[in-house]
């Protein structure tokens, strides 16, 4: 009987150390692991076990008013422009690109701060107006914060972006501040002032523009 038991124990040990025994042990381990995981998941399903969270938030400081001033600028023509501007950096194997779309509005008109003494003279129902030359009212006319990024490859510095802004400005000036547009603004100024003065009761209106 004892001999029979020791033979059975030996055969169990032999079975466990055999390749089939190793596989059985591994399968049992996997099953136990799966059961454990299932138990863990069941207990932790209310919250994910692991999640990566990005707290990406924009903070805006209060708007600071730097200055308020009275101006007297009369606009007679507005030229709204958008420019697709790009810059390329040549590389040995690939080129880097930065392409942006800039928006701006050039305002053409007269600055009343530039009128000379006695620029309005009246006589009965006649009035003579001598206006300063029509020109660009603002040197800064690009709405840079409205800029859209169209394409970027490679890394670009603040200096590159500033250069692109200046490039967009030059392009806008070339397209907007043309002799034709200045002439059109002057014609409209003439028409608008004539209408204004007639509505004030002046029948004879003479308007002259100064020259740069």
């Amino acid at each position, binding site marked *: 009987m004892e001999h029979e038991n020791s033979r059975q124990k030996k055969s169990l040990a032999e079975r466990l150390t055999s390749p089939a025994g190793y596989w059985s042990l591994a399968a049992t381990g996997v099953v136990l692991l799966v059961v454990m995981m299932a138990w863990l998941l069941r207990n932790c399903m209310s919250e994910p076990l692991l999640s990566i969270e990005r707290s990406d938030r924009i903070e805006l*400081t209060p708007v600071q008013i730097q200055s308020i001033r009275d101006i*007297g600028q009369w606009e007679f023509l507005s030229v709204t422009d958008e420019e697709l501007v790009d810059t390329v950096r040549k590389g040995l194997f690939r080129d880097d690109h930065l392409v942006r779309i800039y928006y*701006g509005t050039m305002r053409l008109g007269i600055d009343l701060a530039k009128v000379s003494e006695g620029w309005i003279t009246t006589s009965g129902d006649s009035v003579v107006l001598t206006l300063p030359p029509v020109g660009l009212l603002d040197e800064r006319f*690009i709405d*840079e*914060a409205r800029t859209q*990024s169209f394409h970027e490859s490679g890394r670009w510095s603040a200096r590159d972006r500033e250069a692109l802004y200046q490039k967009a400005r030059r392009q806008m000036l070339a397209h907007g501040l043309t002799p034709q547009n200045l002439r059109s603004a002057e014609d409209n100024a003439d028409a608008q002032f004539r209408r204004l003065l007639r509505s004030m009761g002046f029948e004879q209106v003479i308007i002259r523009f100064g020259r740069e």
Partner: protein
Amino acid sequence: MGRRILFSLLLSCALLQVSCSGCDGGESKGAQPTDTLPLLVTQIQKCSRLYTTEVRLHKIVTYDDVVRVRGRLFAKDYAMKLPLGDRKVAIPMDATLKAYIDFSNFSEQNVSRMGDRLTVTLPDPKVVLTDTKIDQDGVREFVGLTRSHFSDRELTLFEQQGRESIIQSIPQMDIIERARASAARQLVPIFTQMGFREENVTIVFRKDLNVNDLRRLLEN
């Protein structure tokens, strides 16, 4: 032998590529940038606007991007900030607002003359954002080792949000009232030069504006 030479050549090319990629992060040293691609969409509009008040504004937009590992284990919450995983950027910007009186529809109906007395009724002042400028030199970025740099698209999106915030804050500024007073200061001397006495000139504006009216008068 031939294989060794070929291998050395390939390795040199790979090293060159890596070194050139490393140059990208610099301040555009080396090759000079060139510009191409002209395109324009232009809209020309005749108008008659008297700008009477100019307001210059300054604003800083900040963005903080922190990565955390968060979870729950054995009924216990845990959250851990990833080391070297922060990204921050601060973008200073300037903006200019202008208030104007639109004279496009000005006519005899806006003028009333009774003897030597003149009353001019002006339309509502309006406010427009005439320019914004990013202080590119003042932009500050802090990027952790494990994070990528801010892309141009991200930066422009932050700037657009800053612009929107400026527009939203206009009604809180007293710009319309200021524009009214300034318009009177600009126009009365013109009328006095036409022969009217200053005390006989009256500039009239529409009724007092409420906040809803102010929002309607913003043109951006």
